[in-house]
């Protein structure tokens, strides 16, 4: 069975084109079911960055034509922006997608869930089920063994990642938000998504006492006001440290001009990051992700090689099964012929003869089986399978 991929992504098509071939879940399920007609398998992976059709079919060319036609029916212009991959290249592409290596921001984590959903919505059989499961495994492995997905790609996610670096799990951690603008709101949302709770959103009407009281209990301060002067000075924070009993305090200053006194950073247990610090982290993130991507590529390549080995072995599996069936048939026939002689043996002796003959057959067939699978992985599998069929006369009985 051939594995076929036809699709387009942010590398090949602008958003105006991609959005016209993007599919909701129901539409993706229906398209996969339609393409899977006639004993094929099909999965439709559609995200904001890509729409890809994966098919497994005996006739790869026909499957590819149908996939191209299906996408062109959504938007004729997309045909020029489609890529077409087969077998190992298609599997490697899917593994890279699942690992986030083909994403706009390398290592982004959302794609793994999208691949999982696509797999669930697809009409799968042995091949696509295997390739998607292995892709998900590769994606999880990359995330577990590299730091590619751990670094933030935006200022607000950098703030949340820093908070996690200071406090670990953010569940139950409390946040003081100074300013109610959009910038601070984004950072607060990033923190909330990790489990932090917003204790107080302070604006120009909030009293100093209320802010000082909050400083004693919160873990993170996010400042993003449009005030022309400092909103929080070092002395105020130092007073709050008295009631904090050594607990760490992370302060994120997203405002320009700055809201927080830079000397707060010198206080014991206080970590102040301003917009420049966060942007430096985000900039470094991309180079760091590229470094990690090299390691991720090696993991993905190893997983793709495993899939290739399995997929190639499918070509020789029927020949191996026929060979073993034929050998077993001969063994049983010879035992029946010798029945008169074996009839004199007691039950345990008969079992021993059965066992010995079975072992002889297994040992004789072991090496040819292994060699055929190896040859399959090296693309000679079909030739070997044909040779075995010819040498052992497999399938000739039906013709007689």
């Amino acid at each position, binding site marked *: 069975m051939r594995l076929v991929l036809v699709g387009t992504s942010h590398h090949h098509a602008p958003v105006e084109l991609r959005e016209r071939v993007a599919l909701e879940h129901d539409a993706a399920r229906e398209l996969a079911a339609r393409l899977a007609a006639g004993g094929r398998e099909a999965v439709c992976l559609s995200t904001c960055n890509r729409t890809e059709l994966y098919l497994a079919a005996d006739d790869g060319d026909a499957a590819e034509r149908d996939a191209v036609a299906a996408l062109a029916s959504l938007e004729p212009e997309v045909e020029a922006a489609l890529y077409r991959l087969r077998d190992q290249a298609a599997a490697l592409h899917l593994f890279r997608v699942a690992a986030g290596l083909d994403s706009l921001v390398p290592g982004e984590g959302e794609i793994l869930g999208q691949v999982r959903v696509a797999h669930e919505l697809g009409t799968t059989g042995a091949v696509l089920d295997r390739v998607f499961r292995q892709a998900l495994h590769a994606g999880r492995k990359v995330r*577990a*063994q*590299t*730091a590619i997905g*751990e*670094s*933030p790609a935006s200022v607000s996610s*950098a703030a949340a*990642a*820093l908070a*996690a*670096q*200071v*406090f*670990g799990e953010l569940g139950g951690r409390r946040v003081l938000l100074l300013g109610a603008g959009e910038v601070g709101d984004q950072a607060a949302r990033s923190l909330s998504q990790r489990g932090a709770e917003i204790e107080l959103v302070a604006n120009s009407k909030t009293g100093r006492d209320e802010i000082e009281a909050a400083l004693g209990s919160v873990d993170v301060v996010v400042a993003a006001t449009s005030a022309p002067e400092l909103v929080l000075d070092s002395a105020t924070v130092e007073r709050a440290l008295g009631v904090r*009993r*050594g*607990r*760490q305090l992370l302060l994120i200053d997203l405002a320009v001009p700055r809201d927080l006194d830079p000397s707060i*950073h010198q206080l*014991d*247990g206080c*970590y102040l*990051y301003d917009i420049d*610090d966060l942007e*430096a*982290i985000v*900039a*470094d*993130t991309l180079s*760091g992700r590229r470094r*990690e991507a090299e*390691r991720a590529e090696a993991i993905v390549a190893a997983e793709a090689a495993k899939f290739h080995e399995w997929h190639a072995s499918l070509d020789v599996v029927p020949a191996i099964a026929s060979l073993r069936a034929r050998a077993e048939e001969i063994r049983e026939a010879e035992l029946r012929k010798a029945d008169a002689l074996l009839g004199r043996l007691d039950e345990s002796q008969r079992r021993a003869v059965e066992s010995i003959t079975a072992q002889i057959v297994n040992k004789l067939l072991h090496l040819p089986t292994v060699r055929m699978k190896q040859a399959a992985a090296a693309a000679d599998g079909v030739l070997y399978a044909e040779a075995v069929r010819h040498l052992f006369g497999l399938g000739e009985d039906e013709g007689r």
Partner: protein
Amino acid sequence: MAELLFWPALLLYGEAAVGYFGEARRPGIAGRAATWGVRLGWLAQTALLAVQAARRDGFPWGTWAGSLNLFVWLVVSAYLIWGCRNAYRLLGLAVMPLAAVLLVVARAGGGTGVGGSSHYSNLFLVLHVGLVLVAFAGFTLAAALSGLYLWQERRLKQHAATTLFRRVPALATLDALALRTVAWSLPALTLGIVVGAVRLVHDRDSLDALVVATIVTWLVWAAYLALRWAGGWAGRRAAYLALAGFVLVIVVRLALPASHFA
């Protein structure tokens, strides 16, 4: 036999120590190899201790060097609880070089061989030596956690952009783990000292330098707990105090005369 087990243990601990330096420079294979070095080295040392126990009628680690051998095993055992997790790998940077060096010192003192004897009862040695060493192993781990805390805190204070690319536990986690480790270790040291004191009174012996240093060590770690629970200490100050306590642990283990073990 003991000789055959000592060398694999030492080589694997040494490999782990080097591996963790590699992990600090570039996380990945070096760290995983180091973790396996710790696991296999620990197994080799466990087998070494088992051989020592089998060849002796009494408690085999009652000597100064023998107790050092057991101490190394306890430290590595304590490290293994956390060290196998990715986030805690860099703890090995502090623990494994120390373990390898102390194992060499233990061997130089004859603590990794078989034979030797003590006139003390087994029960006394198991309680006194065992409890004190368990406590010291805990303090060593607490000091390693505190060292990692200071390293990570420094990176955060420096606004190091690569801070987020290091797999290091969160500051608050390191701080809490160090406190919890000391909270479990101090009662063990207290009991170990009490058992020793009972023997001291019974034998009408006098205090030696090691006993005094051990009591001072107890005072420092007790102060650590008191300051953290009642004084509101945490973070950097507590970490420095833990390192000071660890210096005393090393002094007690290495720098004082072995006469106490006679």
